[in-house]
């Protein structure tokens, strides 16, 4: 086992060197060359294996989008690389698995993945099935409307306009949060991806799209002035990293790793979601207690 670990570390070094030679030095996530974990912990196992499996979104621009090279790109992906790197696992030794909103708990419970980094909001219901490290990012839900829509300036206005339709994605936290602002259930339209919500807004099928600010900002910047954001963030959506329920040591390790790598974290933001116009660089939130 020692050999394979050395081998993969060496491979990582070679790759880092070759990338640096291309002048892409700042894209690098640090990979620890020496790791020392208490036997029996998840970190020791993964570090020993030299590989890990990470669940992320494959269709979420800025956070996790499967590129043409068949490897996902985005902020979530970079965060996962930082954590993997701290265990001596290089990015090419990470196996990426698609974790759609509907199946995130399932893939963790089944042990199909070692962790899920997938715009995954921490909430109590989910905590019953998985343990969350982090949060690593504080998103907030907002509303996006067409440029000429003046009747909506915040979620409270939705109930006053019962003919207006609100669009969100199945199985997502925003779709649950918005329900308390609706005049009736018929106002809510659900699709499987946000692209369809944006399309539906553009053809007048729905009047409001609601989800986390960063996702909406992506649509606004692509829309050439067709869409706008209104109001304030009306929820706090702390994104966490889902791991097997009860794995406190791994959770604490992830939190420490993020705190120690704030610079890498900010750099990761800048080259992914931070490229979208109008986004602000996040502050690394204080981690929650691991339970």
């Amino acid at each position, binding site marked *: 086992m020692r050999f394979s670990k050395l081998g993969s570390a060496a491979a990582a070094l070679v790759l880092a060197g070759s990338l640096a030679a291309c002048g892409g030095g700042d894209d690098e996530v640090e990979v620890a060359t020496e790791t020392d974990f208490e036997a029996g912990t998840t970190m020791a196992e993964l570090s020993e294996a030299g590989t890990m499996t990470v669940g992320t979104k494959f269709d979420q621009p800025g956070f996790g989008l499967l590129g043409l090279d068949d490897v996902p790109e985005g902020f979530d992906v970079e965060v996962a690389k930082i954590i993997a790197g701290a265990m001596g696992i290089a990015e090419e030794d990470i196996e990426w698995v698609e974790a759609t909103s*509907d199946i995130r708990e399932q893939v963790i419970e089944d042990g199909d993945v070692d962790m899920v980094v997938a715009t995954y909001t921490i909430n109590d*219901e989910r905590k019953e099935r998985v343990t969350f490290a982090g949060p690593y990012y504080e998103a907030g839900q907002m509303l996006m409307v067409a440029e000429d829509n003046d009747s909506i300036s915040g979620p409270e206005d939705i109930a006053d306009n019962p003919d207006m339709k609100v669009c969100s994605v*199945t*199985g*997502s936290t925003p*779709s*649950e949060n918005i*329900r308390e602002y609706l005049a009736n*259930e*018929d106002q*809510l*339209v*659900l*699709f*499987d991806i946000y*692209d*369809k919500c944006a*399309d*539906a807004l*553009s*053809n*007048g*099928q729905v009047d409001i799209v609601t989800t986390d600010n960063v996702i909406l900002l992506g649509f606004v910047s692509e829309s050439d002035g067709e869409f706008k954001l209104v109001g304030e963030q009306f929820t706090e959506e702390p994104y966490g990293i889902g791991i097997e329920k009860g794995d406190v040591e791994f959770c604490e390790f992830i939190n420490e790793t993020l705190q120690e790598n704030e610079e890498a974290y900010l750099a990761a933001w800048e080259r992914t979601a931070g490229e979208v116009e109008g986004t602000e660089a996040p502050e690394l939130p204080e981690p929650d207690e691991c339970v």
Partner: protein
Amino acid sequence: MEPVIDNLDLYWSGFLTSLEFIVYSLVGSMLLGTLIAAFRVSPIPALRGFGSTYVTMIRNCPLTIVLFFMAFGLPELGINYSYFTFGIVGLVIYTSAFVCEALRSGINAVPAGQAEAARAIGLTFSQSMREIVLPQAFRSAVPPLGSVQIAMFKNSAVAGAFGIGGDLYSVGRTLTSARGFEYIPVLTGVAIGYLVITLSAGAALAVIERKVAIAR
């Protein structure tokens, strides 16, 4: 089955939306399919070529691609309607190719002697088509047409999955995702809704088939 019973009103409105969608698609696909079938048997080679190209392309292309093209392709061309409309147009385009083939198989089932006899007594092409061939063709096309349309009823669920909104499929999606009910009872309710549509349509078709059957 509690989630179903507690939300019967939601299921009912989903059922009606699905029915509405199906009726539009039924009428549209019959009209377009008949037009394409007319092209395919016409004396003008260019129209025949157009008809057969259309049928070959559409029949071999998944409905999902037709729907994706409607939803994501057409907006790029500045053509933008609701998914409900796009869904109907997509399903009409797709189903019409099968309607065309069902009608053509009906025409082919009319024995050549019928047309020969019509011609022998001096009827013109349009007279023999109108008076002799088509009435028989439509009757023998009833069973395949019926199957094509029942298949279309089921395909409306694909459009539903795509997101036409408010139909049976989206009721299932709303109840499981937004309201957190368990999948098995909710989807059982959705399945029953579709079974009511397809099984009763199948029974109706059997009655119609017996009525129009031609003794040969």
